């Protein structure tokens, strides 16, 4: 079933007006889902990203979902080798990259095989027909050529001789041999731009900037782009262009950013807001590596990155840098978080600010490294030996990752505690337009520096601010504040090693209280409940977009349903208890086997309806819509 229609009719995009534009008609759509699919070598991510930019510049709202082949690079032309990029563009505030595409570009048989099933009945299918030779068909597992039988009957098919067109276009550019065909993604892109009535300016600019240094390549790509565009104009085969009007987004300056980038920027912002130098230690791991790649490019912000020998070393180095006075972060994905537990427990008892970023992926073990999942929540909340409570926050979208990174830093520094920030592979790689905040208005982060010895003979590291229960931060280099900390239980105030039973009880209680108390310093969950529903849907993390969209569909189909998103998972926001008690049913959709559900039940002893999916793919808004209808159905 499909999603986000503005009408109660769910039959898909409806032609709204037909107006003449030269000799080709234009069909208006409120939104369109487009998917580029081809071999890893075909440059589909690039084509998708360029199209996204063009659409964004035009003013559409949009949301993207790149899908990479699993970690091994598969042989060209095979099914595992297929790479795709989906985006949805719309003339209104959109939430997800959409469920089923209305336009599919298939650069080879394997891409067709993998993605055809998703294409909508009336969908437009653009095919690189010259790739459909014996060998590729065989690799894709086609007995016979789908272009020749009735496989594609139900679709609106356009076979394009992309290779011939590209070769012709590229001639004279200086590029030759196998390299020539590398430009065919620009040909496809040019054609799509035409289809959607966008000119090639934005893209051409980008090509010049990007490939300026390698003239032949630049020329080849520009030529292919133009050729594709012209192919659209000249060929008869296209009945009409599609127009998706600019979205009426709130006024402001927008950029198009993915979650890993936004998160990195949020960390840099937090560093600026706190005046603390940024230190990021990490060991490469999909899908978290890009945070390292992004931050290392911003040394001019005073940011230092450290590629450690493993995740434990990364956590250790980050802890050391925190001790030395940095805004310190260690980033990883699930397997790495499992390894960091012991060090995080030390950070917790040492009461040092440390941000642990976990860009979740499919588990368990090595699992499905390139797929999104939300199954590290238990580990984040409870995955350490001993009583090791710490705050956990989660980003719910690319742009939200920016804010959540700042929030994680605020909590870590103000409360002198490690904080775990959960993102996932969907947020990490997917992008959306982001209305840039006014950096001047971002609130500063105060640092609880130790100001001097707190007794006349000696500095006591565990004397606390009685409001936050945070100890003060004495940083190497500060004279007179020399002190020692460590992982053995410490005596309250002095921080000396203590085996005293009463003190252990006291410190255990203080550490628990300190974290619990943060609930009074975080915003309430905003519940969107236009028509007094009995059903509350609670989401966290990347599923929020699909869930919100599903809620929207359900409402448009007459369902009364309330929606709220939980950004702070530990401690929960202060209004959780009232919220939970004010709805008859609570639905918690998650990409795991019910981890938030259990956290809620353990905390509030209140039944919830879990809706779980562990398939390595996001929820579709359709699934959420369906589930809601089950529950509200009379």
């Amino acid at each position: 079933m499909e999603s986000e229609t503005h009408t109660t009719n769910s039959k898909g995009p409806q032609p709204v007006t037909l107006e003449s534009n030269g000799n080709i008609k234009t069909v208006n759509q409120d939104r369109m889902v487009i998917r580029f699919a081809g071999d890893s070598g075909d440059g589909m991510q690039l084509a998708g990203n360029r199209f996204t930019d063009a659409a964004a510049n035009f003013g559409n709202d949009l949301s993207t979902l790149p899908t990479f082949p699993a970690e091994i690079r598969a042989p060209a032309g095979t099914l595992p080798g297929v790479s795709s990029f989906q985006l949805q563009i719309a003339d209104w505030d959109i939430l997800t990259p959409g469920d089923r595409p209305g336009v599919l570009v298939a650069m080879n048989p394997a891409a067709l095989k993998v993605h055809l099933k998703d294409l909508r009945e009336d969908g437009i299918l653009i095919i690189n027909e010259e790739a459909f030779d014996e060998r590729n068909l065989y690799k894709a597992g086609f007995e016979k050529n789908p272009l020749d039988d009735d496989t594609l009957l139900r679709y609106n098919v356009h076979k394009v001789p992309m290779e011939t067109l590209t070769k012709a276009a590229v001639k004279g550019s200086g590029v030759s041999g196998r390299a020539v065909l590398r430009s065919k993604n620009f040909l496809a892109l040019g054609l799509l731009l035409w289809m959607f009535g966008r000119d090639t300016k934005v893209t051409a600019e980008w090509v010049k900037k990007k490939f300026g240094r390698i003239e032949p390549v630049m020329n080849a790509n520009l030529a292919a782009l133009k050729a594709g565009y012209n192919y659209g104009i000249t060929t008869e085969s296209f009945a009409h262009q599609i127009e998706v009007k600019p979205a009426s987004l709130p006024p402001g300056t927008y950029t198009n950013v993915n979650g890993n980038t936004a998160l990195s920027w949020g960390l840099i912002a937090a560093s600026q807001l706190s005046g603390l130098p940024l230190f990021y230690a990490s060991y490469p791991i999909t899908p978290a590596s890009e945070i390292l790649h992004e931050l290392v490019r911003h040394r001019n912000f005073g940011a230092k990155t450290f590629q450690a020998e493993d995740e434990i070393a990364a956590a250790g180095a980050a802890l050391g840098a925190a001790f030395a006075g940095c805004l310190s972060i260690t980033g990883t994905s699930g397997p790495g978080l499992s390894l960091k537990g012991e060090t995080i427990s030390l950070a917790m008892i040492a009461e040092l600010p440390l941000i642990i970023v976990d860009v979740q992926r499919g588990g368990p073990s090595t699992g499905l490294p390139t797929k999104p999942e939300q199954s590290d929540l238990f580990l984040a909340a409870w995955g350490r030996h001993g009583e090791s409570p710490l705050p956990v926050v989660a980003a719910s979208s690319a742009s939200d990752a920016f804010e959540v990174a700042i929030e994680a830093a605020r909590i870590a520094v103000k409360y002198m505690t490690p904080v775990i920030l959960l993102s996932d592979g969907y947020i990490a790689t997917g992008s959306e337009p982001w209305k840039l905040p006014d950096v001047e208005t971002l609130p500063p982060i105060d640092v609880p520096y130790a100001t001097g010895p707190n007794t006349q003979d000696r500095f006591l590291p565990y004397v606390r601010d009685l409001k936050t229960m945070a100890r003060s931060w004495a940083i190497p280099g500060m004279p007179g504040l020399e002190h020692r900390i460590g992982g053995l239980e410490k005596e309250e105030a002095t921080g000396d090693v203590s085996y005293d039973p009463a003190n252990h009880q006291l410190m255990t209680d203080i550490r628990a209280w300190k974290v619990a108390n943060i609930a009074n310093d975080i915003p309430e969950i905003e519940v969107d409940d236009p028509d007094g529903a009995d059903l509350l849907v609670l989401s966290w993390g990347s599923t929020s977009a699909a869930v919100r969209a599903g809620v929207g569909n359900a409402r448009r189909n007459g369902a009364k349903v309330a929606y709220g998103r939980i950004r702070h998972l530990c401690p929960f926001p202060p209004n959780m208890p009232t919220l939970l008690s004010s709805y008859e049913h609570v639905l918690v959709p998650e990409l795991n086997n019910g981890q938030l559900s259990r956290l809620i039940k353990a905390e509030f002893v209140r039944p919830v309806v879990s809706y779980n999916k562990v398939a390595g793919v996001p929820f579709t808004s359709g699934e959420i819509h369906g589930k809601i209808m089950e529950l509200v159905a009379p």
Partner: protein
Amino acid sequence: MSYTRVDFQTDQEVRWCPGCGDYTILAAVQNFFAGLDIKRENVVFVSGIGCAARFPYYMNTYGMHSIHGRAPAIATGVAVANPALSVWVVGGDGDLLSIGGNHLIHALRRNIDMTILLFNNQIYGLTKGQYSPTSEPGKTTKSSPAGSIDYPFNPVSLALGAEATFVARTLDMDRKHTTAILKAAHAHRGSALIEIYQNCNVFNDKAFIQLTGKQERHANRIDLVHGRPIVFGARKEKALVWKGGQAVIVDRASVNPGAIIVHDAHAEDSSQAFALSRLAHGPYGPTPLGVFRDVYRPVYDDELQEAVVRSQTARGSGDLGKLLTSLGTWTVD
């Protein structure tokens, strides 16, 4: 202003077993710091877990008694975050060579500016006596009642194999020697590993008797001094010469003086230092003490610091507003 030893003592009661070699090392280190011009607040001691690792509690500087094996990684963070600090790592043979082995070799490879004091008592002291990665083969312990079948590391060889720029060995019992080595290590910018033979009188007493015993020590102690011919023995009657790529012990009288190896701690090539490290595999016969290797190589923390400065001078220090618009923007109005 200058310090005395007391300035580096803390109010914590020192809690090693009476007679433990750790006491003498602590005294040596405190005295050494008293003699330096470096400010107390700029010194950081990081340790893991073990008897040796209690060390930071007794040094009145900044310190962290962290978790088992991770001190080199944590200290790396401290040093990289603030290259102006004087960073010291203390740990036992289990802490730094068993669970911490990987962090140690990577810190040495990167040449992080820190001095690593490896208290090698060839046993797990804190956990009450299991064999360690430096225990001799056949050692009987709680976990090897029939004798250990592990072949031990030679910490000096391991460090050299890991591209260490400074490697030395000393003895808890020889305060003067220890102090001299501390000086040399402190003077070296980059990673410095000091293996300190440390007596655990409770679980591995007299492990180093060959080098400390009144009789034995003269026969077995080979003192390495840069620029000096390597001779040893009660009457300096023994000498080292090259045989193929190998350092061998001969009667000094049997070779002409020119053939005697002149110790070169500053040789770019670590081959000679390695060959010297192979003379003894544990303190069981003639064993070299002193600085095996001391060469300069760019230091990670400095390089990174400079890279940051370079980037700031080249691009101007970061502007958040610019960053947020760096991927291109469009406006809706």
